[in-house]
């Protein structure tokens, strides 16, 4: 039985009622997962945020499901993750079958010692509902429902937005706009942005089915199973015993016919067996595209999420990368709005997130080509890989039913300061910080919980103790917090030192988004200052 989704009250804003447009430092357009996360992050960075959404409820139907470790770490930093993990289904193992035999399995988090799980499955409507509640409880965030942006004038600063509500149209002003208005973004059109990439012809049927099933909480993918010959099937467990089943239909499927329950139910019966007890909650047909916007920054309009990039779903790189967009953007935008960093810092949002989008597009496209071979030759090769995978270990790694979302390191970012010395650990500049279990004040804790505000200088070995030290590390008004391993907390299991090659004297300059900006083998105030300035795009 489908549950009813929450409906949020429309309210005519004082601004509209009074006819006096206000000037807002930042407005977020779109209250989906990415827009809501952007609002929470901007608020966490000290800004007041208005969020405009053209409807008054959460997402309808079956959409994003799989939320990966890095987005969970972002939501944990924002204080939202516990609820998501509690409601969601925790998983890390995926299995791939060819016909009726297993051919490949993967484990997304083979090592221990991380606070967040590798992946949770949670219906997008629950994610949104919890994020809306977090936003509604935050006095710095104002959610405005049934507010549709119909025009944007960027010719002068601040920008003027024309917004339509049930009470008519009005204008408001914004210094900065974060466009999270989805795949069919109206704002993209309003700034004249281009969207480049490819659309795929293959159609997929998705069905949300409630059942008490004996499948384990693992991602299961079938190529050419007996119950759906010549096509692929994907199975995921969600909250509330709701299972998501994707059936590949091919490019010639008739979406109108395929959506009919009388055509869907036999497919599910063939898969689950004639005695299976299930209820069909949702059916839809989708096609997908792998595309991205030309520039993530168009003047004072910044694009994030599906408004900036769309991917095929194999690999869960859509919402997960959208949330990583806002993680990258929010701290930069806050510093710029406060005048603590130059506007040029926002160019690095494109410099860092566009290659990440390209990486996601590449992986998603490759998976799609394996799942939907484009010609006879690729079909022959695709099946050759699957046949060999049964007995040949090398072929298993070629089986591509989706390479699951991982953060893309910002290897060429202008904000990084390159290593001068050799480090064993993978935590090079441009990498996100790996979590590690620690002990603080005698209680178990986690490294990432210590990296939630501003820049951090993580120091291994003896704590630098000179008075006024922090001031010597400042770049303009920005200075890092000092965090000393062994002094402020204990590396109780030695995993921090192992993951960071933390020999005594080693220092890491870590950005507000928990990414490494620079690292050294010994403390050098001048170098730290220079790296901090570079990470803020301050020209020296």
């Amino acid at each position: 039985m489908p549950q009813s989704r929450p409906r949020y009250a429309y309210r005519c804003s004082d601004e509209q009622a009074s006819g006096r447009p206000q000037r807002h430092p930042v407005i977020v357009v779109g209250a989906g997962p990415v827009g809501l996360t952007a609002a929470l992050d901007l608020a966490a960075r000290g800004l007041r945020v208005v969020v405009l959404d053209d409807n008054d409820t959460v997402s309808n139907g079956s959409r994003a499901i799989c939320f990966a470790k890095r987005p969970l770490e972002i939501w944990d930093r924002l204080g939202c993750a516990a609820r998501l993990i509690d409601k969601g289904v925790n998983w890390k193992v995926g299995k791939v079958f060819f016909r009726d035999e297993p051919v490949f399995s993967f484990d997304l988090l083979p090592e221990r010692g991380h606070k967040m799980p590798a992946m949770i499955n949670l219906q997008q409507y629950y994610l949104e509902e919890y994020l809306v509640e977090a936003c509604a409880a935050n006095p710095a965030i104002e959610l405005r429902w049934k507010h549709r942006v119909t025009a944007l004038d960027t010719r002068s600063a601040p920008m003027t937005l024309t917004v339509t509500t049930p009470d008519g149209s009005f204008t408001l002003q914004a210094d900065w706009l974060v466009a999270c208005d989805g795949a069919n973004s109206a704002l993209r059109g309003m700034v004249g942005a281009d969207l480049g990439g490819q659309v795929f012809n293959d159609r997929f049927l998705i069905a949300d089915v409630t059942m008490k099933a004996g499948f384990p909480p693992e991602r299961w993918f079938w190529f050419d199973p007996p119950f759906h010959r010549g096509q692929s099937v994907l199975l995921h467990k969600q909250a509330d015993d709701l299972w998501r089943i994707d059936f590949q239909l091919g490019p010639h499927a008739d979406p109108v016919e395929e959506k009919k329950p009388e055509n869907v139910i036999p497919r599910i019966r063939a898969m689950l067996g004639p005695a299976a007890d299930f209820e069909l909650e949702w059916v839809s047909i989708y096609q997908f595209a792998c595309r991205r916007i030309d520039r993530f920054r168009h003047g004072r309009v910044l694009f994030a999420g599906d408004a900036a990039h769309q991917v095929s779903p194999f690999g869960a790189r859509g919402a997960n990368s959208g949330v990583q967009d806002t993680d990258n953007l929010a701290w930069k935008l806050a510093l710029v709005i406060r005048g603590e960093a130059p506007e040029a810092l926002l160019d690095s949002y494109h410099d860092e997130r566009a290659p990440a989008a390209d990486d996601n597009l590449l992986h998603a496209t490759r998976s799609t080509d394996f799942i939907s071979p484009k010609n006879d030759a690729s079909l022959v090769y695709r099946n050759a890989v699957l046949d060999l995978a049964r007995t040949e270990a090398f072929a298993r790694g070629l089986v591509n039913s989706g390479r699951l979302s991982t953060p893309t390191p910002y290897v060429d970012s202008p904000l990084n300061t390159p290593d001068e010395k050799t480090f064993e650990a993978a935590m090079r500049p441009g990498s996100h910080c790996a979590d590690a279990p620690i002990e603080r004040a005698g209680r178990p804790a986690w490294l990432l919980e210590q990296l939630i505000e501003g820049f951090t200088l993580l120091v291994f070995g003896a704590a630098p103790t000179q008075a006024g030290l922090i001031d010597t590390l400042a770049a303009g008004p920005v200075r890092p917090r000092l965090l000393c391993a062994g002094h402020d907390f204990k590396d109780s299991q030695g995993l921090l030192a192992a993951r960071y090659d933390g020999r005594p004297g080693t220092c890491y300059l870590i950005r507000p988004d928990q990414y490494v900006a620079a690292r050294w083998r010994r403390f050098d105030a001048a170098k730290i200052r220079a790296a901090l300035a570079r990470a803020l795009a301050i020209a020296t």
Partner: protein
Amino acid sequence: MPLIRTPNIPDPDGFYKELMDSQREMDAAQAAAMNARLVLLLANQIGDRATLSEAIRTAAATGRPAGI
């Protein structure tokens, strides 16, 4: 390492026969499937991306249309 284009197979006629014999009873689809598996197995044996790329380019450039 560069693609070896000078003779490198001992008893080349024997190898050729072995390969043809392995597909003698196969129809075109079966042989194509086997050839794809063989390509992947041998590619893994070579293991060097530069060599493999050169082999792919060489094979693509010297292909002749079917029926000629």
